[in-house]
């Protein structure tokens, strides 16, 4: 179709002279409102800390009631795992020492087991073809130590009343329950990111990881 046919109707319109156009053109110079929204340098320190604490606390709640939510994965942070790891390692100190060789795990050993263990499990799941990112996986594994930390607190309280017999049974039950809870919670978050026929291959190292941590908690014996 030749162009003249397309604009056939327009040839009837005649424009003579200038046509006045009204309006306003504003160019925003320096948007102070946008700066205020994104810069957190000027806010009081209390706000910053509270915001991070709220994020960490929200994730703790997600671990307590593990549903298939992506909040843990989307906004990962490593503050929670660090807090839990340090708490657990500190509480595992102060065990009884008969000879220097037969002591329980030192602070550094607990730290190494938790962080190296998490890194190795993450590498394992990525090598098997998982779609989760490195830090997201570290975040999930670290946060799911929380039931075991709670179990450690309970064990220390129970140990105040004696080491053997009833106390041992209570500790065994508490540690077993929390270790199963940890494994179940982390699998709920991690399992979706795996190819379907390799799920067991990824879950087993997680099970072993929490089993070892549970063992360290169960075998903690305070000084006589």
């Amino acid at each position, binding site marked *: 179709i030749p162009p003249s046919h397309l604009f056939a109707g327009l040839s009837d319109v005649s424009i003579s002279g200038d046509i006045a156009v009204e309006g306003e053109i504003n160019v925003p110079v320096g948007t102070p409102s946008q700066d205020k929204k994104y810069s957190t340098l000027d806010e009081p320190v209390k706000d910053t800390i509270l915001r991070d604490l709220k994020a960490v606390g929200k994730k703790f709640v997600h671990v307590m009631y593990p549903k298939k939510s992506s909040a843990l994965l989307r906004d990962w942070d490593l503050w929670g795992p660090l807090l839990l790891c340090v708490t657990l390692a500190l509480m595992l100190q102060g*065990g*009884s020492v*008969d000879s220097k*060789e*037969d*002591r*329980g*795990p*030192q602070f550094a*050993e607990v730290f190494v087991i938790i962080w190296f263990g998490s890194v190795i499990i993450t590498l*394992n799941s*990525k*090598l*098997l*073809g998982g779609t989760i990112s490195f830090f997201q996986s570290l975040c999930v594994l670290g946060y799911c130590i929380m039931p075991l930390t709670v179990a450690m607190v309970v064990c220390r309280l129970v140990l105040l009343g004696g*080491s053997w017999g009833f106390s041992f049974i209570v500790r065994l039950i508490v540690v077993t329950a929390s270790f199963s809870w940890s494994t179940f919670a982390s699998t709920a978050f991690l399992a979706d990111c795996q190819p379907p*026929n*390799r*799920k*067991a*291959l990824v879950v*087993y*190292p997680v099970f*072993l990881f929490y*089993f*070892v941590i549970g*063992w*360290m908690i169960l*075998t*903690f*014996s305070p000084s*006589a």
Partner: protein
Amino acid sequence: MASPDDLKFQEFEEATDLLLADPGASTLSMSGSSSMALAGATGDIKLDMSDDEGQEESSELLRGEKQTSGFWTFEYYQSFFNVDTMQVLDRVKGSVMHLPGRNFIKHTLQSSPDLYGPFWICVTLVFSLAISGNLSTFLNSLGSPHYHYRPQFHRVTIAAVVIFLYAWLVPLGVWGFLTWRQREERQQSGYSFLETVCVYGYSLFIYIPTSVLWILPFEWLRWLLILVAMVISGSVLVLTFWPVVRDDTKVTAFATVATIVVLHALLSIGCKMYFFQTATHTPVPTLAPNHTAAVLTNKTH
């Protein structure tokens, strides 16, 4: 107008020519002569070319899969974890219950080794040794009056060092030795380093239930378990490496196999003796309260 027989004969010749040109190429055998006959006069040349392309492509793929990624890329290591759950379970089963005469590498691995099995079996073995050893020490010293439970965490470190050294250095040595002999004797068959590591890793699996059963404090049972475990895992190793050294001189062959078996025995006996020490210094509590026995116990502590 060529008859189907002529067509078939031509294709076979071309195939042999291709093989002579490139002995390393993989061959695709198409079953059913009807497919070739159906190709017809116009289609037979095309079929040959597609066969060529197919062979070249697949041989390129097979070669490329192992060489395109350098060892600094993530994909290189991902190729070692290319196993499914069922495959790992089959390999574990193959290491425990295998029929005599079946080569673990050729039959169970089917020449696609993985690193998942050896690594996680070693880790599990480290922790099962340390934990079971701790439990057995605890059960041993239950009778003594000065009992105090000791976690003995340093055993984990020792077990880890021993097991990982064995599972990685010994295959390195065996592979190096076999490759050196193979190059000298100009033999064809040989195993890659990964396959050797894989065999050793899976052969250690039987020690996991063995270490748990070692908790039971019966000396004769422990030695019986060592024997059974050594027979099973040793036979996996021997059956795997015998076909390779068989062509060598008699002395070298027997020496190699004997070294493999002896190292394996040293590992199992050493683990048993270190982690599961028998209570030799604590006398068994007799029915009649024996004052001198109690004094002796005090003195040894």
